[in-house]
């Protein structure tokens, strides 16, 4: 029986281990409210800073994010301890996965450093420059709702990233009470691809 008492302790330990290195600090972002966003100059600065922060764990816009914390041992059940629901663990915000049906997490999400600490990564010299995050979603005019700048595939759950608890304030929806996102926000024309578009490209 006395081992049972250890279980909550072990769980808490595992969670702390996962989140201690998270890049996003809940405190710093939770202060920002819609009234703060009213000042456009401020919100532009914040948005730029947040885009830059997000870009550090994506090789290009739309790439699956790199895991910003330690990832060992990697298994779906470990990842889902924090990422099955959105929440704040020990002061860090953990986003909820928008595709909980996919359970082979490390198939797409790489760790940012080797799991095996005894080998070191070299500097990789590359001229790769990935697609940049758009500064605003395209819209036909100023007064209609913006379109989605990325495709919906695997991101059907808008709340995962755009909820009012999103770690990135510039990505939070200003109207969290509205739940039917696709009613007003349609995908931008260029984000979905079709074979018709692909085949009309010239032959050489």
């Amino acid at each position, binding site marked *: 029986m006395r081992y049972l008492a250890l279980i909550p302790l072990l769980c808490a330990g595992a969670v702390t281990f996962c989140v201690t290195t998270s890049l996003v600090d809940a405190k710093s972002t939770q202060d920002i409210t819609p009234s703060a966003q009213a000042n456009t100059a401020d919100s532009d600065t914040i948005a730029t800073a947040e885009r830059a922060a997000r870009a550090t764990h994506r*090789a*290009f816009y*739309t*790439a*699956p994010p*790199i895991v910003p914390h330690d990832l060992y041992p990697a298994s779906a059940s470990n990842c889902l301890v924090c990422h099955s629901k959105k929440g704040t663990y020990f002061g860090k915000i953990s986003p909820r996965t928008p595709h909980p*049906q996919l*359970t*082979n997490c*490390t*198939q*797409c*999400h*790489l*760790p*940012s*450093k*080797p799991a*095996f*600490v*005894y*080998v*070191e*990564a*070299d500097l*990789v*010299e*590359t*001229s*790769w*420059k*990935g*697609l*940049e995050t*758009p*500064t*605003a*979603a*395209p*819209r*036909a*005019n*100023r007064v209609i709702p913006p379109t989605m*700048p990325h*495709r919906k*595939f695997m991101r059907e759950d808008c709340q995962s990233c755009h909820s009012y608890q999103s770690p990135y304030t510039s990505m939070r929806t200003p109207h969290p009470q509205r739940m039917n996102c696709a009613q007003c926000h349609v995908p*931008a*024309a*260029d*984000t979905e*691809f*079709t*074979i*018709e*578009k692909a085949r*009309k*490209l*010239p*032959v*050489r």
Partner: protein
Amino acid sequence: MKTSRRDFIRQSAHLAAMAALGAALPAGAAGGVPLPDGLHWQKAPCRFCGTGCGVMVGVKGGRVVAVQGDPDCGVNKGLLCVKGYYAGAILYGKDRLTHPMIRKDGKHVKATWEEAIELIADNVMKDSDRFSIYGSGQWTVPEGYINLKFIKAGLSNNHLDPNARLCMASAVVGFITTFGVDEPSGCYEDLDECDTVITWGNNWAEMHPVLFSRFMDRKRSLPKYQQSEITYIDMGTRKTRSSSAANYYLEFVPQTDLAIANCICYQLIENDTYDKEFVAQHTRFKANDGADLTIEEFKGFLDDYTPEKVAELSGISVGHLKMLGEIFGDPKRKVLSLWCMGVNQHTRGTWMNNLIYNVHLLAGKIAKPGSTPFSLTGQPSACGTAREVGTLAHALPGGRVVKNEEHRKDCEDLWNAVPGCINPKPGFHTVRMFEGLAAGELTSMWVQVTNPAHSMPHLHKNLANAEDRFLVVSDVYPTATTRLAKVVLPSALWVEKNGIFGNSERRTQQWFKAVDPPGEARDDLWQVLAVAHRMYKKGFKGLRDRDGNFLLAIRDENGKEIEAWKWEVFKDFNVDRVLFEEYRKLTFKKHKDVAPYDVLVEHHGLRWPVVQDDQGVWRETTRRFVEHEDPYVEEGKGIQFYGAKAGDDRAILWARPYEAPPEVPDKDYPLWLCTGRVLEHWHTGTMTQRVKELHNAMPRAYVEFHPIDAREMGIQDGDKIRIQSRRGSIVLPAWVRGRGLPQRGMIFVPFFDETKLINEVTLDAYCPMSKEPDYKKCAVRVEKLA
């Protein structure tokens, strides 16, 4: 900025496409700075494994900037793995080869294409019989085809082999011996229909992750009570990420997979649970030497493989062996067997392939939805190029072989080549080719799209003297092989050229060039054309056709020859289309009909045989040998193995016994060594190690131990370990609870790291039928260094 003709066409076509679709004007006409302008998406198959995922390549300003999964491609339905997402970054490593180089006084010196082509042409002409081409399952279909035509018809020399010999050869010979014709009946839809998956020594969670997820996600999406009806059994010698997801992980002693398969067959007959009707209609039995057997005689052969005896040999319990027997014996179960390198890289790889077919044929679990044996391929076009085009020492396109006079004549006639120009004697297979190069039986070799100085087994022996031969290497980055080369040619990579790949499930996928290659890098296809044409101009007789014209001439739609050997002409003309249409004519004989090029352009890949129906629609074949799916199955037959050599439409069950491996651990070398891959890296890492994110996640090789072995030897994480075999040694850091968990008495080392060549240590014993080496088992000893 000057707009080239191609850019102009591209831009106008893109605008036309957008207008036609009624798309909004480029976003940003009002409000904000929106989506980057000029971004467009092009379809392509992924550059890496044999799964053949469809990707959409985002191109902006003449550079690849993003890669996403193609949601309309039936292979992956929008999902990719890490290698796929970062495939765009492989084009942009800082050390891309951008100009030809020739080695002078031990140093590689920048050269012009003119000098390089001249030098290669002279050297090949000087000794064309002792020239060889070593290629790859990563050749596009037209690249493989032009190489085959060049060497087999042009030089009357059959020394052409791909690295697929190290990868798929056992699968090919397995198919040919059992069914008479290469490539599987099944398709990826079987993953959506099966209720039991058995992997035979295959870590598909890391090597074919998209297929693994296709199965696992389907399972997890079901209600809980239905999930339990879907079983995944992993049989292997090392516990992997796949094993962690399995219901049962059955660990066996290396090489005893032969006995396990026979044990399942024994139980099916002994318990009388085999599919009698299927066996009577569609199969026959043969002894190992080819003599016909009755089912009673076959049963007699199996008597050595009772569960009790096999349990003792393999280490799998009698209960688990009986469970396997029951699963295959249950007529309601839909069982899908998957395997890849664990079975193929095996000194009895061909037998092992035959044995898996035996199990499925006896159980009648083949060519049925969700119930079939399915051989996975390692490389993106191992099927499309190496196997279908036939870039092997004995083969010709479309399932033909050089030994067969009729087959040779088919090719010579189509190519208008001089009758008799194709040599009936097969050339050197891969290991023999390198032995020949080392011994001087071959004086020159052209290596394309592969890195043998890293990937060949027993490197010390097989790559000896390579530096002294006339070695030409076409590649995109400096590799272990380019270091040995006399001439290094910079190549175009993936979407820097047009291409066609063929994946594991017979799917042929086409793509268009999306960006220009860097510097002076040029297509491998052009390189071959240029060298061949130079030899023709210099009067090499073999490269003249029956009318004295250039044998490899590329003709436009009006039949007019174009000067494709000139880069300026080549780069603005779709040579792929011409060559593919020519090759297509050779695919009908063995019913491997590929779709016309223009049809492939409009699809996300089509699975052959692709045949036009009465309405003029091109129909792909999901399951081969099955009536109403495969157009070549006769009416009323149900299932017809029409490839059978005897013409009786029967598949053959071979009595293949267990055979001990050539090298087993002993007193001096007490451990098994197994080698393999990791999720993040592709083969020898030349491309994926240039991607920052992939390199950071898995920078260097390591050696995995079983924790109990490690404790007994006093080894801890990070200790420097010397691995020594009878052939060579390397030093690696130990990782005790690593990516995988090898069985007791075994260590595992991934082979991607060019600074730690594990192939200095591996054994080059190979399957005598397929000539495929066994990278999965040899004996080593380890020593902890201070």
